[in-house]
């Protein structure tokens, strides 16, 4: 046995591959199911950092790749929407070091607000996409993604899904790279400055790159053929390939890893050798439509299977063309705000005041459930402020005065800051009230740091973004900070009532650490204080 055998989640496999492939910088924003990639990369000794949001993470990543460094940028599927502006133009540029963007999709919405299928982004942004079907492939395709990225100087999307990210399977890693080029800035303006004069040829260049990558995919791209009965041929990608092989062990199976641009000729050859051609894919009919577009007689799945995850049983049903109603699994217990959460009182107060609550993403979304039932809207990260302002602008005054925006601390930094700027710039006639429920961590995804905690991804000390000072400097008229442990009286209730009655812009920061994170936060702070003290002492000796 010369090859080490490991049991790794897909996330951990990507992190290990990033380390072995010589990634110099990993950036991202935490989001289930992608979060553990950077955390593991950090624990393995890689250089990883959380950015305020996915767009910034990708921008930092683009710069790092321009400098010739292999770079990994991670996010969940909805995060790619935030990063999309940067992504689409990054596609036109020539990246010097490999740039791999992870999109961790969540079919079935285990913990997300939609189940968008990010395969559409590969086509829309014209970027190659690799889709592994287990941890071994997650490891191998991370390497491959860097190789493709550098060979064609193009960002590559590595699309994972929940059952890849959080499934542990056996991985045999390969030896780590020993030498890597040193980052170095080489001026190449036409390849990096996308003014129209340079962007027009860049688009042509991008399409040429894609054509070359497609040819490479035909000739030597990653694919697996499992010979079986030619009566049934199944084409599948990602986790769907695993379900399909188990559901129809006797069929002939083709699965492939580089799912954009497609190896069409290979698929055509496969179609020619089987009698019935079925496409098994989770989510939208992306692959089946592509096959039909080139005239292949591919069968897709009935519309009912577009929703939620696939599993072996559902694939059996798809193959049998069974559209009878599926058994409804018994309802589990829904999640809830933690019993000891110090911010529960805020939702109780908003409920008692009959506020119209424009909510946001994170633990606090759980304020929508009983016993609070204190949330009326929730769209995406940061939307609480913009949506609240929109409600305020058009509702009759009596209702407008009841509108409150509620947002968590990490989410506020992610995309609430620009909402606050909008509130200062376009205040509704009745003013507006924003509440930042600051629990000192990114709680929902497992207690990650953010610019408002004053600690880095590895929990060491850094500068702190002060919300109340920022809001004052931005021009918010009334700024208040409340420690929720002192909420034994009606002070919060009275404050909210007063602010709702005036026509000014207001921010209340309710502050108390997450009950789950507090013990760890105390440890980090103690360690950081000791480190700071040690540094000062060293300075004095100097």
């Amino acid at each position, binding site marked *: 046995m010369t090859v080490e055998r490991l049991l790794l989640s897909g996330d951990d496999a990507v992190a290990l591959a990033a380390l072995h492939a010589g990634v110099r910088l990993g950036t991202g924003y935490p989001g289930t199911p992608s979060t553990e990639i950077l955390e593991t990369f950090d624990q393995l000794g890689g250089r990883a950092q959380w950015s305020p949001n996915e767009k910034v993470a990708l921008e930092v990543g683009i710069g790092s790749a321009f400098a010739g460094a292999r770079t990994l940028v991670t996010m969940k599927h909805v995060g790619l929407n935030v990063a999309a502006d940067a992504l689409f133009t990054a596609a036109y540029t020539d990246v010097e070091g490999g740039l791999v963007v992870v999109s961790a999709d969540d079919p079935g919405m285990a913990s997300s607000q939609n189940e968008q299928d990010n395969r559409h982004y590969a086509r829309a942004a014209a970027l190659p996409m690799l889709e592994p079907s287990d941890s071994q492939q997650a490891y191998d395709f991370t390497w491959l993604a860097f190789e493709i990225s550098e060979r064609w100087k193009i960002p590559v999307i590595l699309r994972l899904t929940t059952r890849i990210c959080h499934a542990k399977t*056996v991985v045999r890693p390969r030896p780590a790279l020993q030498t890597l080029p040193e980052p170095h800035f080489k001026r190449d303006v036409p390849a990096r400055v996308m003014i129209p004069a340079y962007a027009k040829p860049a688009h042509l260049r991008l399409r040429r790159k894609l054509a070359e990558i497609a040819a490479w995919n035909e000739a030597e791209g990653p694919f697996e053929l499992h010979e079986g009965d030619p009566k049934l041929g199944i084409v599948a990608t990602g986790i769907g390939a695993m379900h399909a092989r188990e559901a129809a062990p006797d069929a002939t199976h083709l699965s492939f890893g580089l799912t954009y641009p497609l190896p069409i000729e290979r698929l055509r050859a496969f179609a020619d050798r089987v009698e019935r051609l079925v496409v098994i894919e989770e989510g939208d009919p992306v692959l089946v439509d592509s096959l039909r577009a080139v005239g292949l007689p591919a069968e897709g799945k009935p519309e009912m299977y577009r929703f939620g995850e696939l599993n072996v049983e559902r694939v059996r049903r798809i193959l049998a063309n069974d559209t009878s109603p599926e058994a409804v699994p018994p309802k589990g217990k829904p999640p809830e705000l933690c019993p000891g959460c110090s911010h529960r009182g805020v939702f109780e107060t908003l409920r008692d005041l009959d506020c119209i609550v424009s909510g946001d993403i994170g633990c606090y979304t759980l304020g929508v459930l009983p016993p609070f039932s204190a949330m009326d809207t929730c769209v995406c990260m940061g939307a609480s402020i913009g949506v609240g302002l929109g409600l305020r602008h058009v509702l009759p005054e009596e209702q407008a005065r009841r509108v409150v925006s509620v947002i968590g601390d990490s989410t506020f930094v992610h995309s609430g800051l620009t909402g606050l700027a909008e509130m200062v710039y376009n205040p509704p006639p009745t003013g507006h009230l924003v509440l930042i429920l600051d629990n000192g961590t990114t709680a929902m995804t497992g207690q990650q740091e953010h610019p408002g905690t004053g600690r880095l991804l590895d929990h060491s000390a850094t500068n702190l973004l002060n919300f109340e000072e920022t809001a004052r400097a931005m021009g918010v008229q009334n700024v208040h900070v409340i420690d929720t442990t002192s909420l034994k009286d009606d002070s919060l209730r009275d404050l909210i009532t007063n602010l709702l009655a005036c026509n000014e812009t207001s921010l209340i920061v309710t502050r108390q650490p997450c009950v789950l994170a507090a013990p760890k936060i105390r440890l980090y702070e103690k360690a950081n204080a000791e480190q700071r003290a040690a540094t000062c002492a060293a300075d004095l000796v100097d």
Partner: protein
Amino acid sequence: MKVKNVVIAGLGGQGVLKASDILADAAFRAGFDVKKSELHGMSQRGGSVSSDVRYGEGILSPMVPPGEADVLVVLEETQVEINRPTLRAGGVLIAPDVLAPEALKNKKSLNVALLGAASTVLDIADEHWIAAMHANLAEKLHTLNEQAFEIGREAARARGLS
């Protein structure tokens, strides 16, 4: 070897994921192919949570198909009926009532105790269970958890589960 399907279920915070990590690691150390699948996120906030572990030769899907679990371990009585559809006919159900009410000194080791009960119907050698527990649990808890594992195992044997 035929694929062995195990589902571990309970509420967020009970150690469902930790228990499935230990089982997957034990099967891995025993030399089997292993796949383990779970859902994170919202489920960590006290809601229902479950984790699938499959081991044997050449595992494909990481999820146990409905009605195909050989063993279902449930850490919370209210979650038994919700998860029963995952169990195959003749499959083994292991729930807290396997244990005597005051059997455990520390309720937090319930996950490991029920894993001990499950171990009586899973073909994994003791040394792999011990190694997996040591690899996945804090060192100061090793003795406590080994005891809990043994308590669960004895209880299961006394009840004739194995």
